[in-house]
Structures are given as C-alpha cells and as structure tokens.
C-alpha cells in the first residue's frame, strides 16, 4: 500500500495547487469470480485490483484523478495536472496525518486462504439442488463472487483510516421450460462475511428457490397492462423504494435542487405508514461498510419517518453545498471513481399489518413476488422496474402467474399511495449502478401494498 509519507506529499501538493480540501483513496482488492453453467465452469479467475484515487475540492467544485502506478513521481505529477483548473491560493492548509486508525477484520475465513476448488464445491451443491427440484429445470447458472477489499482513506484534515471489506455473494439463476416457454428464477444471497457464510446458509434451499421461481413462471400468461393495486412481497421488493425515492434522497440529486425532495425537510412526503431508513452499519450485511469511502463511520439514517421527510444521504462535497453534515454515505465502486452519496442498506421499517391481512384486503390486483432491477430519473421522480415473478390477485387470493410486467410511477406519488405495510421486514441483496459505479446494496421491506399504480405489460 502507499506509504504515509507519499500520501502526505500528495495532499500537500493538492492544497498547494489551489485545493482547499484533498483526499487520497488507496485500494488493494483480492477477488474471485467464478461462473458455472450447470456443472461446467464457464469462466473463473482470481486477481488483484490496485490503485490510488486523488480528489481535490475548491469550494463546491472538484477534480479527480487516479492511477494504478503508485510511484511518488507519477502520483505527484497527476495531482498537479488535474489541479490546473484551480487558481492557486495560499489560504488553505494541509494538516499532518493522524496515526492510522485500523478497522478490525470481522470475517472468520479469509477468501484468499480458501482453495479455489472449495469455492467450486459450494457452487456444485447449489447446481445440484436446483437441477433436482423439477424436470422442467434445464439449466442452473451460478456466479460466485468474493473480495477482500483493503482501503485507506486520507485527507488534508488529517484523517487517516483503513477498512477491510470482505464480501461474498452467489447469484443463482435457474431456467425452466414448459411447453416451449423458457423463464428464469433468481436469488442472490450475500453478506459482509468470509467464506464461513456458505456454512451458515442453506445452499440447497437457495438452489431450490431459484428453480421454484423459474418453474412458476414458465408457461405463464402475459400480464395485462393498466392501473391496479399492487402488493409487493417482503425482501428485495424493497428495491422499488430504492428506485422510487432512495436515489432522489441522495445528496447528489438533492444538493443542486434536482430532486423532487429538495428543500422539503419536515414536510409530509409519503403516506403516514411509511418509514424509510438507510443503514450502512448493520453488522455483516451485504450493503454495510465499517467506514464509508470518505472515511466517515457508517450509521443508521432515518430518511422518512411516518411519512415526514427527516433527512438525506450526504457525502462530503454535497455537505458543503447543503451546509449539512455528511452522513457516512460517501461511496464508490473502486479507486477509479470519485465518491458521492449513495445508498447502503435501504429499507421500509415494519408496519402493523400481517401479510394475510394485506391480501385479504385486496380484492383485485397484482402480487409481485420478486423483482429484477429498475431505474429512476431523480429530477422527475419517474421510475420503473421489471418484475421477475408475479401473480394476479383475485378476491383476496393469489391467482395465476403472469410474466412480462413492469411497474412504473413517480416516486412521490407512489409513496403517498402506500396504504398497508406488513410486519415481516426482510432485506435482500443486490447491486446499484450510478454515478460512482456499481455498488453492493441491501434493499428491503415488509410486504407492502400500493393502492394504485401503472403496470406495464405485453397484452
């Protein structure tokens, strides 16, 4: 890793070149990626990422540069080059770095010490469980990921911290065919843990669950388009709120007034049954971090409480613009990205209704059991997400499966239309793709009903 002496020099150079705040981010990441198509390895490699990212502020403007060449000469040179757009000033000072604040490694079994073949074995177990679920299952496709990400963050205010993020996840897809119609099912368990994660979870159950989803949707009718009540299952269904309002509560949208939630703190922005939380400090959760990528400790941020807007997710730069404190929400995919405000584990807090009560109160509509992915335009609040597994609701009961559905709406409007929140909170694991790259996130909710929304379909 980069020495403290060189790190200090980079920070001093940036300040001397006109910056009023400078930050160095060093990343060293061991990682494994293996893809299996049934029993056959489709792809698999072990490698190491390494590089240094340098960010410099001047007021509310910033510059960013990075390199995997960590020689002192190169890093000082690229710092000077990128700071050329600033006017030199002698007002700012660079504080001497504090002693390195070290984060403990929480995982028990380091991935770099686990034989490659052992990683293949856990995948094989999932493939077998899925293939044995039903004859209709034609293919299991598994992607295994692990990483030991060691980062150091240093800044011109003297902050000097490190963090170790050991993460692993298995993306499990199953493909089933019925009457010539092939559909897929998917689950993606993951955690901020070491290889012990695979001894703690029921691998067979995950394989079967992916296969069940595929079998349920194969041969299903197309979903009818139109407006209807929608019940979304607990767990990763929370991605709907991640898209519908999570991104619009990130300071990267809010600070410049480009969010429908800008300047609305204290206002009722959602139905009173909605409490939305982002918490990057949940122990060992997939979306958690010890410190964020700007060196701030992660924490629980209540964003909406009983329908009232309480806070935003704020990074260092936007904290300057908003004149508010950072919330431990500065994140980046790697040293190749400047950090900005991003979600960690975002969820709707539990409500009062049981799942059964929610279905009993819904005469007709759509039951969304699982979703795949979505996106949002934070300026307008227009969001969409694709439904992976869905069923009609008729007379308060789950009916036939339907495929090809998309849910669309405006974040602010959908928040107002949440009329029932269940008591069965669960948080799923996924990725979020935005300005500072692809990040691991948690998204969760109890079973939730939206009284009316637009369902896109193919018939």
């Amino acid at each position: 890793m980069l020495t403290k002496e060189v790190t200090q020099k980079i920070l001093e150079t940036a300040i001397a070149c006109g910056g009023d705040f400078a930050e160095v981010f060093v990343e060293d990441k061991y990682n494994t990626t293996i893809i299996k198509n049934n029993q056959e390895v489709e792809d698999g490699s072990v490698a190491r990422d390494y590089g240094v990212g340098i960010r410099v502020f001047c007021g509310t403007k910033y510059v960013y540069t990075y390199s995997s060449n960590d020689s002192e000469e190169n890093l000082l040179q690229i710092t000077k080059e990128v700071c050329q757009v600033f006017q030199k000033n002698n007002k700012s000072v660079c504080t001497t770095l504090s002693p390195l604040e070290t984060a403990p490694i929480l995982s028990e079994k380091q991935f770099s010490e686990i034989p490659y073949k052992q990683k293949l074995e856990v995948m094989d177990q999932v493939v077998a469980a899925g293939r044995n679920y039903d004859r209709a299952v034609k293919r299991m496709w598994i992607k295994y990921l692990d990483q030991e990400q060691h980062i150091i963050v240093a800044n011109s205010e003297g902050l000097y911290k490190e963090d170790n993020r050991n993460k692993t996840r298995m993306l499990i897809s199953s493909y089933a065919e019925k009457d010539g119609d092939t559909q897929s099912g998917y689950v993606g368990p993951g955690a901020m843990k070491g290889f012990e994660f695979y001894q703690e979870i029921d691998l067979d159950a995950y394989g079967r669950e992916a296969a069940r989803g595929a079998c349920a949707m194969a041969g299903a009718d197309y979903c009818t388009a139109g407006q209807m009540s929608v019940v979304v299952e607990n767990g990763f269904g929370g991605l709907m709120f991640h898209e519908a309002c999570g991104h619009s509560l990130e300071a990267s949208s809010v600070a410049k007034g480009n969010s429908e939630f800008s300047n609305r703190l204290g206002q009722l922005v959602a139905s009173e049954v909605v409490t939305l939380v982002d918490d990057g400090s949940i122990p060992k959760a997939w979306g958690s971090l010890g410190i964020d990528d700007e060196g701030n400790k992660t924490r629980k941020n209540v964003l909406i409480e009983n329908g009232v807007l309480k806070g935003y997710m704020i990074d260092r730069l936007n904290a300057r613009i908003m004149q508010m404190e950072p919330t431990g929400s500065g994140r980046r995919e790697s040293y190749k990205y400047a950090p900005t405000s991003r979600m960690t584990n975002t969820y709707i807090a539990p409500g009062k209704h049981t799942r059964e009560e929610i279905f009993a109160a819904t005469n007709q509509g759509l039951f969304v059991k699982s979703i795949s992915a979505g996106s949002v335009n934070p300026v307008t609040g227009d969001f969409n997400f694709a439904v992976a597994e869905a069923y009609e609701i008729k007379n308060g009961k789950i009916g036939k499966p339907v495929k090809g559905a998309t849910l669309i709406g405006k974040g602010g409007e959908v928040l107002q239309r949440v009329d029932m929140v269940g008591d069965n909170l669960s948080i799923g694991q996924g990725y979020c793709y935005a300005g500072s790259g692809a990040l691991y996130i948690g998204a969760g909710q109890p079973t939730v009903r939206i009284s009316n929304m637009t369902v896109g379909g193919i018939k």
Partner: protein
Amino acid sequence: MLNHQLKTNIFSLCKAEGIEQAELYYRRTTSVKVNIENEEVDTCKQSDEEGLNISGNYQGQYAATYIEKLDEASAKAAITYLKEAAQGNQKPIRNSHLAKVNETHSKVEEKQPLNEIIKELIAAQGKIKDMDARIDSVTETSYIQTTVEIQLYDEKEGCLKDTYEYCKGSVGVVVEEDGIRQNASAWELSGKFEKIDYLALGKKAVTDATALLKAAPIYSGTYPVILQNNVAANLISYILPIFFQDTLEKGTGKYAGKIGTKVATEKFTLVEDPQLPSGGVKRSFDDEGTATNKKYIIQNGILKNIVNRSANKEATLLTGNGFRESYKTNVGTGVTNCYVEKGTRTTETILKDLTECVIITDADGLFAGINVNTGDFSLISSGYYRKKGQADRPVKQITIGGNFYQLFQEIQELSQDTAASESEEQYVESPSIYLKQLMIGGL
C-alpha cells in the same frame, strides 16, 4: 505501451511455471472529462488506466488472470492464481492465434488545450441558458476525450496493436413551468472538439425537455407506433446478444439453425462494421487476435451471420467477435459498430401518412425491462400522441411492451434520419422504426 522488459519477464515467468501458449492483453485508457456548471468548471476528471490480462494453458487446462499494478511481483502472484484457476476450471486448451493485420491508429484531430475547451464550453453554456425562459439550470455542458490503446502479444513475439480515440460532447438541462420539472440531455460523438455543435445539442435538450412539461399518460391499448431513431438505436444495442453464438449455446435465443431464413421484414438490414467512420470503436482485430471484418447480421430480412469467437464449441467460422469488456474479463462475444440500413423517407414524412400514431422519443429501464432470453420487453417511455387534425399531445408515464423477435417481422418502414445509441463502447446507429401496432400501458 506495455514495458518491453516486463513483457519479456512475464513470458519467462510463465514458461518457468509451466504455462504454455501464454498471451498478454494490454489495455490502456486515458481520458479527460470536464463539466461546466454555472458558467465555471464544476468537475474535471483525468484518468490513465492500464491493466494486463495474462492467459495460458497450465497442465492442459486454460485459465486467465489480470494485474493492474504492472510489476514483476504482481505478475508472480497472478501466475499463482492462474495455475489454481486452471486446475479448478478444467477448461480445454486454447491456442494463441494472432492474425496478420495492419496496426490501426485513429486519432482525435488536433487536440485543443484544455483551458481553451473550457472557455468555449462556458460560452456555449451561457447561450444555452438563454434559449428558453423555462430553463431552470444547464446541469451539464461537458466534453470527454478518450484514447484506447490495445495490444496483444504471444510468446512467439507475435504482436497486434490498435489505438482509437473519440471525443464526446453532452448537454443536459432542467426546465420548469408551473412547478413541473423535466430534464433532458443530448450528446454527440465526434473526432474533433470543434465539430461538436453544443448549441444544437442545447436546442435539442431544451426542445425534448419542454415538450414533456405538459405530458400525461394515455389509455392502455395497442397503437400504431414510431420508435424514434434514438430509441430504436438504444433498443437494438441491448438486444444484440440474441445474435451471439454464446446465447444460442446456452439454449436461449431463437436463432439457432436459422441462418439463411427470414427473421425480419425485407426492409430490415443490420450490419456490423468495425471501421464505421461514425462509430466510436475502431478495431482491426478482436481480443482473440482474429481479424475483424464488416458483415451482415440480417440482410433484407434474412439472417446472414451469427457472431462468434473461437472459444465457442460449435463455431465453424470465426467472425472476429471475441471481445473483452476490459482487461479484467475473459473474452466473450461482442460487436464493435453496428448500423441498421436507413429508409428513404424522413420520420416526419412517414408520420404525415398516418391518421393516428404514438411517437416514442425516449425509453428507459432497458437494463431491466428487456428479457434477452425470450425477446419480451416492457419499458417506461415518453413521446407524443398524434392524430390527424389535432395538436400533438405529449405523453409520459406509459410503457411500450412487445417481443423483439415478433417486432422484427412487423416493421413497416424505416426512416431516412438516423441516431446513435448512448454507449460509445458498443456503437449502434438506427433509423426510426414504424410499427403498425404495439402495446402501450397507461391509464
């Protein structure tokens, strides 16, 4: 450029460690991006990113790894990883086969100094801000210049090199009227900064954003639809994997064994051209060292080629389509620049003949809303509804839904005007597509 001594040392290390047919793939991407906001520099990002993929056969099994820190110690560790993966993956041997092609070098013409570019961007932003009283902010007036250098080496001193550069200008605006806010952006790929018309981009972004201020959903149902050229280009960009041998080998996609058969209306022709003048990518060889070539994927409705790479089990003809997403990933099937052959009439002229039509000017959520396995798609969209004798009605918060395999068979007409997809790494150019009917989800 990859250091010669390091290259030699890595090949020696591979040999000493029993790795045969070693191949090195070096990729360096340098870029500068500057964005103006409130008529001053908002952000400036500079990067010089390089990485090296090392692949080869160990004990009769193929594997690969990569390093970002380009030194011998990193390479030594990487070779240990490669050996372990080779033993676990049990992938068949791959022989290095670098084609004999000429080195290509497409450069951005006469680079302007960054401070001059910044001055011009600031001036353009001021003019864009004055284009319409409803403009709340010009959120983006940016310029990005990227150089990609790719080198492929084998242990027999074989070497292939491609370098290409492009620049891209973008403008984004937020407009507001009666408390309703709407944003839009426009961009242009070019070979030179001076050729980017920022005022034209600003005008387009402002027109697109203001058009949707009063937009509302329409009733669900089937309508005659024109997918405007930019929307058509983006959709085609996402569904290109249906033409990949990889997709067919997995048992998904519907074109297995269909070469020579009619899969689209006669009007539809889809071409891949690695040296397309307007394309962002310029490649003379693919990432397996096979020479690239211009090819028809669909010609007058007939499926002509399934694109493939050497690792495909059933590949009978290499089409020069083995590409990596980066030095980190292994070779998969991919394309460079694709275009749909255009028609003879403009989108406006096609519209004049229609009594009723929904024109889709934007579609979002393509990553999630397109099922490449089945061809089904359902996407949040916006545009306008036109009925003869009535004023155009802006439309948003609707979905378009259908199936691509079916859509190709139902194309009525293609326009003369074209637009490109948003990704510069996989360039797709398309005219507008007129469909007799498509499902719209709305009220």
